[in-house]
């Protein structure tokens, strides 16, 4: 699910930037520091929407750099267990299917793909197909997330399409 949330972040500027265009540097550094990162707490930080407040900076004693606390709002993406999402299929092999929902990769193991869909390694590209449905690279699927694992820089999810109203969508 995408969220819009207010967050805060501390920016450290070295003394060379403490001049007339200081606010601009602070803003730029915020974009560089946090956009595209991923944390366990907030999920993916996709883009900063607005800078709400840049507080008065504090010079760090004995160091010369200054710290600024910046309040901003951002678009976040965080997957949850039992959430239903639409995704695009990327890789298809004998183990299962990998689908992508924005920055998130969702792995669907073979046992959680409907049993009437069989893997066909000889088709090009490789696919799972039943009589009327086909999953190959680029197919859009509706997936229910069954679990997530949070790494330092990425979130991985596992999903199922073996339930009512899930599977391939047009």
């Amino acid at each position, binding site marked *: 699910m995408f969220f819009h949330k207010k967050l805060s972040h501390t920016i450290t500027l070295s003394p060379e930037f403490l001049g007339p265009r200081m606010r601009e540097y602070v803003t730029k550094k915020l974009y560089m520091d946090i956009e595209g990162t991923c944390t366990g707490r*907030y999920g993916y930080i996709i883009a900063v929407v607005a800078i709400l407040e840049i507080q008065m900076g504090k010079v760090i004693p004995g160091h010369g750099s200054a710290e600024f606390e910046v309040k901003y709002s951002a678009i976040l993406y965080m997957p949850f267990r039992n959430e239903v999402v639409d995704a695009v299929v990327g890789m298809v092999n004998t183990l299962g299917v990998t689908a992508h929902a924005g920055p998130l990769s969702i792995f669907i193991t073979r046992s959680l793909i409907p049993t009437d869909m069989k893997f066909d390694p000889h088709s090009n590209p490789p696919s799972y197909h039943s009589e009327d449905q086909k999953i190959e690279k680029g197919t859009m699927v509706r997936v229910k997330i069954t679990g997530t694992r949070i790494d330092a820089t990425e979130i991985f999810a596992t999903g199922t399409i073996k339930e009512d109203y899930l599977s391939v969508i047009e």
Partner: protein
Amino acid sequence: MIRAGKRHGPYRPRAEETLDAGKLELGEDFQDAECLLISEVKVLLEAQYESKKEEKNLTDVYTKTLEYVQKFSRYTNRDTIKEVRALLKPTNLEPFECAQLGNLCCSEYEEIKSLVPSIGNKISDDDLDSLLKQMDSLKKYQG
């Protein structure tokens, strides 16, 4: 929360074990946060695209997300998004459920109830049905 003595191995946040969107348990950070429709994310991201491209500030996450929202955005213009929001506002559904309704665009109330089980009995089947129908017609007749 149960803590069984000393933790072994690397630290892993516990959150993923306990949170469950099916029961609407999103954790304290997201419980009351504003949820965005995919179409709204598309509007926000596209507005930033040009300036980001100029500054060469496009991250991998940003481009992947932009591709995704362009593919799955259901409502093409801002007025339609506003009208969908206006339809969803008077219901007593949580922000997460509203966003799921707008994103998944189901045609039957049974379908959405099965995909978003937390909706349960918060809204009567007839109301839900007419809500879905209105959203569907907005989608059909958008400019």
